[in-house]
């Protein structure tokens, strides 16, 4: 302690660190880097050798990683991906609005809204509990079969509605937890200034709640981006369906790999953006708490 104090007076700008301790830290740092590199090389080396030397690898390679079919499938699957992007953009727009409305309804205390709260609770339970694929099948084949005049019969429309219904249930819960996480004292402060209930939500509670739930919301949207492929069971030729058509025609699975790569490419930017936002919020929180 006393040497520390003496040294920091002699050299005020640089915090004093015991030289022996500094050397030990550097040695530990170099050793950690070495171990990390070696274990990574060994791990992936063993996996590559195990897969490559397996008996079935040449067959698998030809069936899934065939360069000829890759070039053949690439443009067609890529063109079909436009449909997935359309489904995603339209669905996301409605999911955000409906999810927020549902969350606000379930949190309201107004007696007149009780029936809506009951509907909201049942809706959330039903659509979070039902597999999304099942919702797509039921709506996509069921509703057009009713032959009701005035309703669209396009499977693409019903597939998109199914995704909206399924994901709204999740997103509403994300919003609800965000709103509930805002401390009641914020509401009290707003009300004490004379702001009404709606104004308090609009200007004080929701802006903070939405900021807080952006990372989990984006996470759900990464999931929605790839679940647009579920609409393929209804027939529209989106990316997965386009790949499937080639697979059935050529008896080679490479187009599936093409579709997988395209879906990954579609979701990676959103996933990295989510990571970045989460990290930024974490930094703000730690620097803000003084």
């Amino acid at each position, binding site marked *: 302690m006393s040497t520390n104090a003496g040294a920091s007076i002699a050299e005020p700008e640089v915090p004093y660190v015991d030289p022996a301790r500094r050397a030990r830290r550097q040695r530990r740092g170099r050793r950690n880097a070495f171990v990390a590199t070696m274990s990574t090389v060994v791990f992936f080396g063993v996996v590559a050798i195990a897969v490559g030397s397996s008996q079935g690898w040449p067959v698998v390679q030809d069936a899934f990683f065939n360069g000829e079919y890759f070039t053949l499938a690439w443009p067609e699957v890529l063109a079909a991906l436009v449909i997935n992007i359309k489904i995603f953009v339209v669905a996301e727009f409605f999911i955000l609005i409906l999810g927020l409305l549902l969350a606000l309804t379930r949190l309201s205390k107004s007696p007149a809204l009780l029936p809506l709260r009951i509907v909201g609770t049942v809706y959330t339970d039903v659509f979070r509990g039902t597999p999304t694929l099942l919702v797509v099948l039921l709506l996509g084949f069921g509703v057009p079969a009713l032959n009701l005049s005035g309703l669209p019969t396009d499977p693409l429309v019903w597939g998109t509605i199914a995704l909206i219904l399924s994901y709204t249930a999740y997103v509403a819960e994300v919003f609800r937890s965000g709103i509930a996480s805002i401390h009641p*004292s*914020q509401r*009290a*402060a*707003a*009300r*004490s*200034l*004379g*702001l*009404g209930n709606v*104004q308090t939500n609009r*200007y*004080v509670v929701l*802006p*903070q709640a939405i*900021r807080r739930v952006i990372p989990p919301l984006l996470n759900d949207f990464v999931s929605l981006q790839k679940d647009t492929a579920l609409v393929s069971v209804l027939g529209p030729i989106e990316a997965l369906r386009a790949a499937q058509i080639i697979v059935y025609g050529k008896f080679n699975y490479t187009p599936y790999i093409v579709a997988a790569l395209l879906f990954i490419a579609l979701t990676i930017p959103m996933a990295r953006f989510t990571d970045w936002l989460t990290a930024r919020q974490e930094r703000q929180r730690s620097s*803000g*708490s*003084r």
Partner: protein
Amino acid sequence: MALDLLRVDDVHKAFGTNAVLRGMTLSVAAHEVVVLIGASGSGKSTLLRCINGLEPVDAGVIMVDGLDVTADDADLDAVRQRVGMVFQSFNLFPHMSVLANITLAPRKVLGVSADEAEQRARDLLTRFGLEAKADDYPDRLSGGQQQRVAIVRALAMQPQAMLFDEVTSALDPELVGEVLDVIRGLKESGMTILMATHEMGFARDVADRICFLDAGRVLESGPPAQILGDPHEARTREFLARVLG
């Protein structure tokens, strides 16, 4: 007493089975400064929250500037525009700048134009030595600065009276003085004030009247010199012996 700006008459309030206010009766005249003292749980905060309509009462009447806060059809937003409230934990809106915190209610509740609200906010900030902080966010300010901004935010609604709920209890000791100075300044400008505090020295300086609260009622009230120097009730003496050491 038509002159009373605040009047609390035989108010009862329980949280579940925990009766916090049990026949609370109290009045504050215009331009008067009344300080509430008493142990934790004696009902100081609950009383202030009931006056501002943040908690509904179970029995009794609270009148604010002629408006009945406790009526079933009370227009609580109208009451809250007349009474400013400042909390122990500041409660600034963390997603807004200091200026936005202050101008929000005047713009959205009173319908003041953005320019005018900003001008008034800057005038108030200057008056309390905070003009340099107008564009900062609350987390960049010290606790004392945050609490002074919270006071300015309440004043921006041009209230007739201010309620202070232990506004210095969450502050580091060296920051208490700057907040108390603001309240002293408000008294000098003639503001009607009802405040709960543990700062006995400040109560002695500033209060026109001190009320000692015990078990949900006003046990005794009077001028500071009498309550702090020569209390009639044994409970008051016990309390003062504990807090004054």
